[in-house]
C-alpha cells in the first residue's frame, strides 16, 4: 500500500468535513486526525476535535479530544502540531503544562525528526519508522496539570522537526504555557517515545495489502463517462 495517500486523506477530512462547531485552531498549528473509526464510513470521519478549549477557565489551552468511537484494528492518533526548521545538530526542548482525562493509551508532548507526515508514518507502521520514533513526555490521566518537557537531539541531517501535543487513542489532552528553546549538553535528552503500537499497525497494513492483492482483475468503471 502506498501510505502517502493515507496521510493526505485525514488532512482532507479535517479541511473539508462538515463539523457543525469545530474548535478554532490557533494560527500556526496543524491538526492531525488519524482516527480508526469503530464503524467504517464512506465519508472521511472526524475522530478528534483539535483546537482551543474555549470552555476552560484560566490561560488559553490547546486541546485534542476524541469524539468518535474508535476501532481496535490499530491505534488512532490526534495531535496539534507544527513543523520547525533550522535546528539540525542542536538539542531542543518543548515544555508546557499538560493535562489528560479519560483513558488514552498515551498523551503528552512530543518532538521527532521529520515533516508533517511524521505521526502518519508511525500511525501506518511505515517501514523504518521504529528507527526514529518521536520522543515523548507523557501526562498521567486524571492527575491535573503537569509540568512536562521533552528534550530532543535533532540529527545533523534533519532539515525539520515535528512537535506538539499528541493523544493516542480515546480521551482528551490539553496543553498550555508552551515554551521552546535550545538547551545545552547539561540538559538530558528524553529517552522515552510516544507509546504507539507501530508494529501492530504495520501488521494490519500488510494484511490489508495481501488481502487487496488477491482481488481478481477489475475492469474500468464507467468507460462511457455517464
Amino acid at each position: 500500500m502506498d501510505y502517502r495517500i493515507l496521510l493526505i486523506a485525514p488532512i482532507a477530512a479535517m479541511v473539508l468535513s462538515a463539523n457543525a462547531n469545530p474548535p478554532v485552531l490557533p494560527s500556526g498549528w496543524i491538526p492531525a486526525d488519524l482516527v480508526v473509526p469503530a464503524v467504517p464510513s464512506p465519508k472521511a470521519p472526524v475522530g478528534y476535535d483539535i483546537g482551543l478549549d474555549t470552555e476552560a477557565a484560566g490561560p488559553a489551552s490547546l486541546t485534542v479530544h476524541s469524539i468518535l468511537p474508535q476501532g481496535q484494528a490499530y491505534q488512532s492518533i490526534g495531535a496539534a502540531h507544527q513543523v520547525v526548521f533550522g535546528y539540525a545538530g542542536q538539542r531542543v526542548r518543548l515544555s508546557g503544562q499538560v493535562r489528560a482525562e479519560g483513558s488514552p493509551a498515551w498523551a503528552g508532548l512530543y518532538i521527532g525528526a521529520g515533516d508533517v507526515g511524521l505521526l502518519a508514518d508511525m500511525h501506518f507502521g511505515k517501514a523504518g519508522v521504529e528507527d526514529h520514533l518521536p520522543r515523548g513526555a507523557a501526562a498521567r490521566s486524571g492527575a491535573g496539570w503537569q509540568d512536562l518537557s521533552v528534550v530532543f537531539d535533532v540529527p545533523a541531517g534533519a532539515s525539520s522537526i515535528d512537535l506538539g501535543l499528541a493523544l493516542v487513542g480515546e480521551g482528551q489532552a490539553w496543553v498550555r504555557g508552551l515554551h521552546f528553546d535550545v538547551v545545552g549538553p547539561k540538559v538530558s535528552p528524553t529517552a522515552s517515545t510516544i507509546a504507539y503500537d507501530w508494529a501492530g499497525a504495520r501488521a494490519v497494513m500488510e494484511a490489508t495489502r495481501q488481502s487487496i492483492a488477491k482481488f481478481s482483475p477489475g475492469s474500468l468503471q464507467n468507460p462511457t463517462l455517464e
Partner: protein
Amino acid sequence: MDYRSLLTIPLAALAISASGADKLRQPQGWIAGSSYVWPQGASHEAGVAPETEASGHRALTVKAIGERGMSDIGSISQYVFGYAGKRARFTAQVKAIGVDGWAGLVIGDGFLPLWLHPGAREADTALPRGAAACPDWCEVSVVADIPASGNGVAQVGLALAGNGQAWARDLTLEAVGPEVPLSTGGFAEKASEAQKAAREKFLSERAAKATPPVNLLLQ
C-alpha cells in the same frame, strides 16, 4: 476482518479532496484533481468535455486554468484492483492542444493521485508510465507492470502538466501477456524534476535559518 472497509475512508477522502477541480461534470467512478497554487487555487480542471456530452461519444478532458508552470499538473483517473503481478494496458483515443509540458495517458500503482506523483517526497519506482497524446485524435496505449509486491491497485487516467488542454475517449483497460511490450515513456518527467528541485531548494533555505515554533501563546 473485511479489509475492504479499510479502503473506504481514504478513497472517500480522495473524492472529497479532488473537489477543487470539479467545474466540469465529474463522471461516476473517476477522480479529478490538480496542483494547488496559492493563492490562485487549482491549476487545472478536469471532467467530461462539455462539447462531447451531446454527441454520445463523450471524452474526458483536463485543461489548464490561466497561465501554468511546468510543474503544475491536473489529472482525472480511477483505481482498478486486482493487477498485482500483472501487465496492464490502458488504451484510448487522445488529443492535446497548446501543451508546453506533457499530456497523455498514464498508469500508476497505489493510491497516490497522479497529480501528486511528481512531487512525492519519496523516490518512486519506474511507475507511473505514460503515453503522450497527439495534436489530433490518435489511439495510444500505455502498458505497465503492476508490482506483485504491492497491493495490485492500478491507477489509470489522463494527465496534463503545464499549459494547454487534453482529451481522451474510447477508454479500455485490460490485462495483457508478457508478449506485449512495456511502455518506455515516463509521466511528466520535467514536472517531476522541477518539483523535486523546488522542494530541495525550499528545504535547503529553511534549514539554513532557525525558525522556532509560532504562536506558543495560543492567541
